[in-house]
């Protein structure tokens, strides 16, 4: 084995140690297994090197970067309106939610604020992106554990949400709808009524998942007590979103951060779970999907009238300065640190995506677990490859 990098070196040493601790009498030896880059459980190209002693993991190391697309650099050679097209593709399931923090940061630099109607519609789409993203997790967790049916229910009901997105924005996956100082267009006629129906459907889908999957005995034995993250460890590793809320940390940027978006006008709840295991992460995400549907229903009822676009110049130049804006995205905290030198495009953009930090805990979490639990834990941490590699 050619030892070239630090992690390879530590992996090699750990491998030797693993061989030393397996049964000397039976002359067994450890086995290194590459989960990925092409593996059904990694939904993309994440590679996880695991050292196995039988079915038990001795150590594990995630290796990301197989899908690195250089977004931070690409942002520097684009104008502000062009950047939103790009960052849609970071977390491709929570499409619209990626645009919002960047636009907010740029608006902060320009000193403008979108009119209330635009902010409310932004919040609606933000929460719809959450439903589109997390509902897939709710089904996908089943297929990772071997239950084939739930994922089809998830796709079925997610379709209605995507259809609504398409009706309003023209894009199912990449809406590219957010503009500096407002939105591209207003909602089409009849959209609000249809959205009410779809939200009722989403809530019934959550109930279905609770009955079909979460109440299942086998699901519970497979997830309860598996991959427990204590709150302190989770915070050290920089976990965010449902992963840290499932460890009992009551922290949600939608509520805790003062944002121009419309969450403060709604009556909703941040759910936490004290256990910190895979089951808790599933449970918290299920409740969040429900809350998202409730938030959207409330926003639809109180949607203000008025313009959807603040006054901005035709050619947008952002004054020099620095701004940081982060929001509670479907996968966790996502933020953009935008540095402007007064040009038509950003000088530097630092993207803080949730999944990259969320999988940093994988080596700590996978030590000593069994191979099937590796899949449970990875599925319950819920990452999107585009969100890891950017």
């Amino acid at each position, binding site marked *: 084995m050619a030892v070239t990098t630090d992690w390879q070196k530590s992996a090699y040493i750990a491998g030797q140690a693993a061989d030393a601790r397996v049964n000397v009498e039976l002359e067994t030896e450890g086995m290194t297994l590459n989960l990925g880059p092409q593996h059904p*459980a990694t939904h993309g190209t994440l590679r996880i090197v695991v050292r196995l002693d039988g079915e038990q993991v001795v150590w594990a190391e995630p290796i990301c970067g197989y899908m690195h697309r250089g977004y931070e650099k690409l942002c520097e050679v684009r104008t502000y309106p062009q950047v939103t097209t790009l960052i849609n593709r970071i977390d491709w399931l929570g499409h619209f939610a990626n645009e919002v923090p960047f636009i907010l940061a740029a608006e902060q630099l320009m000193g403008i604020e979108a009119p209330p109607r635009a902010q409310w519609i932004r919040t609606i789409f933000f929460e719809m992106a959450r439903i589109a993203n997390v509902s897939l997790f709710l089904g996908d967790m089943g297929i990772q*554990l*071997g239950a*084939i049916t739930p994922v*089809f229910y998830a796709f*079925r009901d997610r379709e209605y949400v995507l259809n609504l997105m398409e009706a309003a924005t023209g894009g199912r996956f990449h809406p590219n709808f957010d503009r500096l100082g407002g939105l591209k267009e207003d909602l089409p006629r009849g959209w609000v009524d249809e959205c009410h129906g779809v939200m009722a459907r989403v809530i019934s889908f959550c109930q279905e998942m609770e009955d079909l999957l979460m109440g299942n005995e*086998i699901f519970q034995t497979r997830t309860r007590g598996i991959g427990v993250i204590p709150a302190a460890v989770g915070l050290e590793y920089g976990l965010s979103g449902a992963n840290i809320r499932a460890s009992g940390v009551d922290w949600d940027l939608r509520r805790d951060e003062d944002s121009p978006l419309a969450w403060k006008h709604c009556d909703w709840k941040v759910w936490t779970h004290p256990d910190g295991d895979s089951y808790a992460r599933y449970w918290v995400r299920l409740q969040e999907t429900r809350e998202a549907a409730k938030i959207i229903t409330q926003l639809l009822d109180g949607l203000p009238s008025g313009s959807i676009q603040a006054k901005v110049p035709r050619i947008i130049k952002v004054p020099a300065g620095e701004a940081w804006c982060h929001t509670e995205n479907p996968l966790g905290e996502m933020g953009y640190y935008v540095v402007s030198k007064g040009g038509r495009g950003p000088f530097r953009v630092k993207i803080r995506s949730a999944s990259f930090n969320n999988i940093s805990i994988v080596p700590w979490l996978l030590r000593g677990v*069994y191979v099937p639990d590796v*899949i449970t834990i990875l599925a319950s941490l819920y990452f999107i490859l585009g969100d890891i590699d950017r």
Partner: protein
Amino acid sequence: MPLMLGVDFGAYWATTLLKVVVVLGLIPAGAIILGYVFLLKMMSHMQSRLGPMEAGPHGSLQLVADGLKFIQKEDIFPERSDRFVFAAAPIVVLMSTFLLYIVIPAGPRLIIEDLDTGIFFALAVSSLSVLGILMAGWASANKYSLIGALRAAGQLIAYELPLVLAVVGVVIQAGTMSLQGIVMAQADGEIFGVGLIGNPFIFTQFIGFALFLIAAQAELTQAPFDMPVAESELVAGYMTEYTGFRFLFFFMGEFGTAFAFSAIGATLFLGGWYVPGVEGTLADVLGPLVLGAKIMLVAFFIFWFRFSYPRLREDQLQAFAWKLLIPLSLLNIAATGVLKVVF
């Protein structure tokens, strides 16, 4: 016809050939029926989709088309595989399926070979497939295959025991191990003195039936016991490196065995081919149809569980077998034995 030592060898070989052809036809037929009705259609409708609709009426020829496609594919051997063992493994798996069909009766005379130890033979040959799976996993030179094969070996050996013990209750009650004899014992039985429909053993051996279904599920490596092929962990387990017609053999083995196990379940617990009041040639005509309907009923349960449940973990699976199923089946045997002596 040449007569040797007073035996008509020509007729013997002709009948044997006919029997072999019948079984060789039954395996793909059973696999296609189960595959189409349950894997393609029932699963699709459970999951609010249509499934294949284009090949043949309502997509009924889809599996035939798939089979033809598999035969055309290149026969790939991994570079570091053990070529002979790799090639032989699917045949060993299919052989165990083949031998299962020999003892299943479909009518008073429709049975390939009415062995006195029928059910014992069936359960014994069903575990031959472990050998094929281990061969496949070892010869593939693939880590996923190896893990899958070892999981399969551990699982199939553990669940052999509850399967056999679940059947012992029936054998005690029927007083014979011949499957034909078990069918007749159910046909001659009476429910509280009423002998209208005989006495299918499901009424007395309901615990045995439940145990049989669970253990058969594990023997067939279907969810919730599908760890050997767990596609989200092991890609496809011991089948990972197989392509073309060798993969087709595994597929046929899996669904052919499911068909055979459903038939054994129907024979042991649901009365088999027996139709009340019908005898002779008519029974030979109606028998296969009745048995077929019962097979579909048992298979429906097997596949219903398969499409609904998540899978267990390896240690939970072993704990389930040794701590729950085996004690329960022993209790069932004890209760059956006592009741057999009392009544």
